């Protein structure tokens, strides 16, 4: 009680008095020391990444020994530049035209539709993907080098599938945790927490053994045309990712009280419709953020992928591990830079989405640190 009153009465007084003396105070030495320390750590955090980028332009034949000269020859080895460029240009043009089209129509004829103008850009992008995919065969030819190209492709397929699973499972579970808490909440959260902290090698060996036991050779043969092992990768990588999405969605909904959903129910909306029209828009930013985060996590999942993937479905990290015994080529660096760019893009978008939905940078950090 006393502490509370002192805090309540003391704080405003002290903040009110503060501006005066602070101007005359000598520079905060602690702050300067901490700033230097922080700067140093930031530099160290980026040094290895900088080295990877630098060494992807290494002219020599080894990733880890710098030859003294830069060259883009290993980028040329990885990518088929011509094919990729033409596909990319086509995609950008279709997306741009599609996004602008509603505005032109509006300017010329005066017709407009909120739905069309809102979704024009994503739809145009999707059409672009389909057109580019069906006309240019870039998917097969973008990577010139077979081993690393297949590995990168597998990485993306595995990460996309696992993310889809994680977003669906995590989204539903997050809503249930925030809105329908009950006796089950505690045991469920314990399992989620265990998934987050269990050393990955434990999950990896457990799943590798378990998939052998599942009947119908579901996890050992090819699945719906995907290489054998891809289904295992989806399941294996989805575990951690779905736990992350669960926490993010739960945190998002916990901050919004349930009155909107209750209002919808009072107005006669059946549960399914209330979920679709009220809850889903509320958690959409959390789903996008969680999904992108899952994607970056799945993209560089090494340990589970190493145990559960097959020869035909080995992902980029698995490929890289297998290369360690011999000399690692700078092509690996080029692929790493591509993955790095994707990660930065995804994280940037996560930040943008969360910020737009009203989070401060501190809240974003809390989200990324696991709630």
């Amino acid at each position: 009680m006393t502490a509370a009153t002192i805090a309540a009465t003391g704080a405003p007084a002290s903040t009110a008095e503060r501006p005066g003396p602070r101007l005359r105070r000598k520079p905060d030495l602690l702050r300067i020391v901490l700033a230097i320390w922080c700067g140093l750590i930031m530099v160290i955090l980026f040094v290895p990444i900088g080295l990877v980028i630098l060494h992807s332009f290494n002219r020599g034949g080894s990733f880890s020994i710098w030859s003294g000269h830069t060259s883009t020859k290993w980028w040329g080895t990885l990518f088929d530049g011509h094919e990729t460029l033409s596909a990319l240009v086509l995609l950008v043009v279709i997306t741009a035209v599609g996004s602008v089209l509603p505005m032109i129509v509006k300017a010329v004829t005066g017709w407009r539709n909120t739905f069309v103008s809102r979704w024009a850009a994503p739809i145009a992008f999707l059409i672009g993907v389909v057109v580019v995919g069906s006309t240019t065969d870039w998917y097969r030819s973008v990577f010139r080098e077979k081993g690393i190209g297949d590995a990168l492709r597998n990485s993306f397929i595995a990460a996309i599938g696992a993310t889809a699973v994680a977003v669906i499972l995590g989204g539903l579970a997050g809503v249930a945790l925030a809105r329908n808490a009950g006796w089950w909440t505690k045991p469920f959260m314990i399992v989620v927490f265990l998934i987050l902290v269990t050393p990955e090698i434990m999950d990896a060996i457990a799943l590798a053994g378990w998939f052998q036991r599942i009947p119908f050779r579901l996890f050992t043969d090819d699945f719906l045309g995907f290489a054998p092992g891809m289904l295992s990768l989806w399941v294996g990588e989805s575990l951690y990712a779905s736990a992350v999405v669960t926490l993010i969605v739960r945190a998002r909904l916990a901050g919004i009280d349930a009155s909107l959903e209750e209002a919808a129910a009072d107005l006669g909306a059946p549960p399914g419709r209330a979920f679709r029209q009220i809850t889903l828009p509320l958690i959409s930013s959390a789903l996008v953020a969680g999904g992108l985060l899952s994607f970056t996590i799945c993209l560089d999942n090494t340990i589970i992928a190493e145990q559960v993937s097959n020869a035909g479905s080995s992902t980029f990290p698995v490929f890289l591990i297998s290369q360690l015994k011999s000399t690692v080529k700078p092509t690996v660096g080029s692929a790493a830079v591509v993955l790095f760019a994707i990660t930065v893009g995804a994280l940037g978008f996560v930040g943008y989405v969360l910020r737009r939905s009203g989070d401060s940078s501190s809240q974003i950090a809390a989200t990324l640190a696991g709630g």
Partner: protein
Amino acid sequence: MAQSIVPPPARRRVRAPKFALAGPSMIWYVLFFIVPIAFIVVYSFGAKDSSQRIPVDLSSPTFGNYSKAFSATFFTTFKQTIRIAVLATLLTVVIGFPVAYFLAFKVQEKWRAILLALVIVPSFTSFLIRTLAWRIPLSKNGTLSGWLQDWGILSGPIDILETRTAVQIAIVYNYLGFMILPLFVALDRIEGVLREASKDLGANRLATFMRVTLPLAGPGIAAGVLLTFIPMCGDYVTATVLGGAKGNMIGALIDSQFKGAQNWPLGSAIAVLMIGAVLLVLAVGAILVFGTQWILRRRRRVDISSVGARP
């Protein structure tokens, strides 16, 4: 007001149980997390039998794998793993805490966002590639090695690749971000009012830090330790990429039992022991921390009943 609206009495629908939406997750986690790990525990009591598709013979349960896991070679790796992980956790706290403190208290909001991004981006960049990148500065014939010799700092080339030192350096680097983030979150949630109050009551900076900020940051430190120490113990990438034979860690050992030696029972036993060792270390750490806190609290206890009585 709620009274005036009479709900339509017709068709009372069967309500789904409250956890229905979490149902798919529950099935998923039971099927692909709990049951598989339970099987690992079961396997650890079996015997190796390469003739089957799952090379485990469970007909005569034994503790043999556990006694084998305690044999000299495995036990050395165990000790080394725990040593690396404990040291790395302490180092990440010591290195990361000032950074988190600076971000939480000493920086303006607009800079904070940028600096946080600079912590987050490397942390979420591929773990394997970041580890592999350490081979560049640490390599014997590398540029850094040459510079250090030219400047006379080292007499011979850097020779720490394939040793425990290399693993130690890289593991601290790899997990630093995952320590800074929870620390920052915990420090950021401390209300400025409490620190102000401490100052106004006459505490100097050190006392404020030791008696207000640090105890309130406790949950963040605990979260950071959990998020770094446990994965470190199972870390298999860092040791595989940089450790060689001398810097082996338990995660790589488990992997080799499953993938190379096909000795699932022994690998399972080592994995179970690893979890046990992790829990033991965490328990010892928790007892140490809570013990010191308890002693300090007893020594510092102030009787506030008389203070509170005054108007």
